[in-house]
């Protein structure tokens, strides 16, 4: 596919976009999540898989959920968990939950669905804060770039080169 590649944003990152002020003790993650707006749009197109969209919207008050969904759909391309994505879920689900404690399996299932959407829609990367995605991607051997938002944003240009003019 020519043009920008799809970058699938996980719930762990997108949830921080709901708050306009940094939550106490989570300033670094909040700032990093907001760096999504700095992503080079010639290189990456921001996407949200439907399972992640559902999770993010669970954090929004019910009265504003519909409007919030419309805004999120403008910020991200929404990737459906459709039949083809379900086949990918079937391919990777067991690998994803293998070796995980029973209590963590539900969370991993959602991660598997998000990664399945990424594979089904030919995404180039998955962006997250927790390590589950990377573990699944490595274990299944998927060709997806994985990391936190800063690993997809262009490196900061230094304002000074260390010398004063």
């Amino acid at each position, binding site marked *: 596919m020519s043009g920008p590649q799809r970058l699938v944003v996980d719930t762990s990152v997108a949830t921080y976009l709901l708050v*306009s002020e940094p939550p106490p003790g*989570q300033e670094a993650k909040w700032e990093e999540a907001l760096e*999504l*707006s700095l992503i080079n749009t010639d290189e990456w197109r921001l996407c949200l898989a439907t399972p992640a969209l559902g999770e993010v919207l669970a954090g929004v008050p019910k009265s504003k959920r519909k409007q919030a969904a419309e805004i*999120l759909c403008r910020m991200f391309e929404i990737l459906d968990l459709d039949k083809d994505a379900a086949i990918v879920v079937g391919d990777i689900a067991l690998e994803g939950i293998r070796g995980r404690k029973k209590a963590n399996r*539900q969370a991993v299932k959602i991660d598997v669905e998000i990664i399945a959407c990424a594979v089904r829609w030919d995404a180039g990367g998955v962006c997250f804060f927790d390590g589950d995605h990377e573990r699944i991607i490595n274990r299944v051997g998927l060709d997806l770039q994985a990391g936190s938002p800063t690993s997809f944003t262009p490196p900061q240009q230094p304002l000074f080169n260390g010398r004063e003019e």
Partner: protein
Amino acid sequence: MSKHVEVKFHLQAEGLSLDTFGWSDLKEFLDRLLPALAAMEGGPTAANALPVRVEEGSAQPVLRVPQESLRAVYRFRAGPNRNWTLDQKIKAGRVYDYLEEKNARLECGARVLKDVQVPTGRPDWQIRQATTLTGDVRRTGGLKGRVEIGFDEFGHVHCDAGRGLAKELGKHLYERVAVTGVATKDAKTHALLTFKIQSYELLARAGFQAALGELHELLGDDMNEFDPEAFLAEIRS
């Protein structure tokens, strides 16, 4: 001070009488009639066409207009011809639409009432205007360099862009753009018929930031106590 004359507008339709012609009906009729009259050269305007009364006989609103504007009323009554401007056709078209919607006839005159001529088989007037529209690039290509854009306001339209611009826009497939060019719209429905793209601006990045601002504005104080880490732990436990 100029002389004034009374002009009667005799509306005739089944079931229409003074008992059924209420204030809102009168307003709707005059809101369409007065711009049409004012559009005629020397025609009476909303400021100098004074409502006097509504007479019996179906419904006959009577307006007092300056005598020198009577010729314009008669030109309106005679119906469109090749000398009418586009603006006159569009504004008179709204009166014709009203009459067609109500299945009504309209006569008018100062002394002798004559039918207002409603042209049959009216062509759809088109409006051409330079404008900027936003939407998503859906498809580009072809010999003539056409670009299909899903406009926010008008839906999907195949636009003329020329090969150079089409090639450029092809690099931004499925992205949001603001395109500037010349639009042709249906004067009656305001549907976008054609669009010739002259330039474009990529909106993706500005769109994300603007939408993020909109999201924060929407949620506002509701999220003051929101703890993303605790929420994630809860939803995924």
